[in-house]
């Protein structure tokens, strides 16, 4: 099945191509857009990016598999990135992560069966002074405790903050 970019994405990609001497540097933005529009980066989505930018498939594949935010498999709509790095760990980050696992009924890395939430154990998200913390799209949850996790999930159910919205 061959995929396509929306007219809006095509416009964005074309505008970005003017910002660099060649099309190659646009591969990261195009992958972000493909992921937004097609949910994850299937082989077909990689082929779409390759064709759009006149790049070899192998090159696009190499880039897509290097960076952790690109998803090669379908995952939940809302990605919860919970930091457990040093500053967060020192103030209970692993306990908060465990609370997310328990409330969502998935292990870190997993997606809930309703495809709503994808839970990721994240490295430092540059909010260490408010540890432990999580980031979900454009929203930060700061100074978390395990007993706030239920409230965080309820809030995200009402306002899911999918990452695609900022591409």
């Amino acid at each position, binding site marked *: 099945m061959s995929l396509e970019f929306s007219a809006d994405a095509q416009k964005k990609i074309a505008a970005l191509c003017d910002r660099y001497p060649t099309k*190659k540097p646009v591969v990261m933005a195009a992958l972000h857009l493909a992921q937004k529009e097609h949910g994850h980066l299937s082989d077909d989505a990689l082929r779409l990016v390759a064709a759009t930018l006149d790049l070899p498939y192998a090159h696009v594949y190499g880039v897509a598999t290097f960076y952790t935010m690109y998803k090669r498999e379908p995952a939940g709509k809302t990605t919860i990135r919970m930091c457990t*790095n040093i*500053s967060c760990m020192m103030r209970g980050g692993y306990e908060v992560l465990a609370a997310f696992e328990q409330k969502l009924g998935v292990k870190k890395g997993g997606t809930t069966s309703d495809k709503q939430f994808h839970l990721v154990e994240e490295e430092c998200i*540059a*909010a260490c002074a408010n540890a432990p913390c999580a980031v979900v799209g454009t929203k930060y949850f700061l100074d978390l405790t395990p007993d706030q996790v239920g409230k965080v999930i309820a809030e995200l159910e009402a306002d899911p903050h999918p990452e695609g919205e900022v591409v």
Partner: protein
Amino acid sequence: MPTDRNTKLVSARFGNEEAKTLAGYEKTGGYATLRKALAMRPEDITNEVKASNLRGRGGAGFSTGTKWGFVPKDAKQVHLVCNADESEPGTCKDRELIYWDPHLLIEGMIISAHALKAVHNYIYIRGEMMREYAVLQKAVDEAYARGYLGKNILGTGLNIELTVHRGAGAYICGEETALLNSLEGLRGQPRLKPPFPAVKGLFGNPTIVNNVETLMNVPFIVVKGGAWFNGLGMGRSGGTRMLCVSGHVNKPGVFELPIGITFRELIDEVCGGVWKGRKVKAVIPGGVSMPPLDESELDVPIEFDALQTDERIKNVMVRPGQQFDLGGGRALKTMAGSGGVVVMDDTSNIPKYVWRIMKFFAHESCGQCTPCREGTGWLEKVARRVADGKGKPDDLELLASIAHGIAGNTICALGDAAAWPMLGFLTKFRPDFEAAVKTKNKDVAA
């Protein structure tokens, strides 16, 4: 003489929602400096930056003016790239700086681009910083609409372009040559140096990579002069510094402070002391890549040179009796790094924290060099079993020899970034590791 603690440059607009907009920024004096700078000769701006003793806030603390001076005079095309990839654990200033004052970064970049005669310039922002990306892109669009960016800016005949490039998750892209590869649309793997980016960088052209905070200081240097900026700091380090304090203190936070404040003053006077009435056990001085300090070393000023040379800081050892050699017999103490200060109280389980730091490096190694790829994996594995109470008596020696085998033997400094704290913690907290090997504690998470 360092300045007083109320002097705020780059954080002056923190908390001011309106200042994020172009109109709000201009109302507080924004873009006035740009007009002055565009009327200056590029060399004169660089000379002020040299005189200011502004040093890179990204980690290495290299003199910004000196770095700018490395661009070959006859270069046809030069690029300025802002490193907004902030991901060194313990560091959380660039994110706040971009969020609260995106136009100050843009103004700093336009002025710096003029100084470097750079036309096509980029901000590489970490992929996970989606909120900050949205704020920054909006500000860039506003600056274009007002004629501060683009062709013939403010009628000066100068063309200065600025593009925001989003990353997609990879700590290593903070390393400047990995960042350049990523910007070119490649996997984010570091390049062998030399050539250094100032000579051959982005798209093969001379390129200056500077940190967010570094570039945000440039407008102040242009307005008030390099000598004034230098006077705010101490020794060969001009200006103020953003310090990010996290961990076991009563009031963690991101603070702009005079360069030269000591760790003890920072912890006790700025951050309300150690939490729960406890004492300090260890302090990471500038992101987890830097060797730690112990309680007896906290009266050292947080200044680039002091942290490398102050007699009160012990030398990092490979093993008892053998000093670590940075090259040519130079001892390693520690470095000011990224400004991320992590305070550990006296109940801290040091081996467990060290395991978490090693887990990070093992996860982030790009895999290009064998000592780093294999070594960081082994450091994590052995540190974990030590922390887990499953360590063997030889494990401390094993950790030391793995770390020693990585240091200095890799393409980029990530290898050192893993080795140095490993050796530093072993040097200063050896009894904690010895106790962990002897006792059975099984409280490592994950």
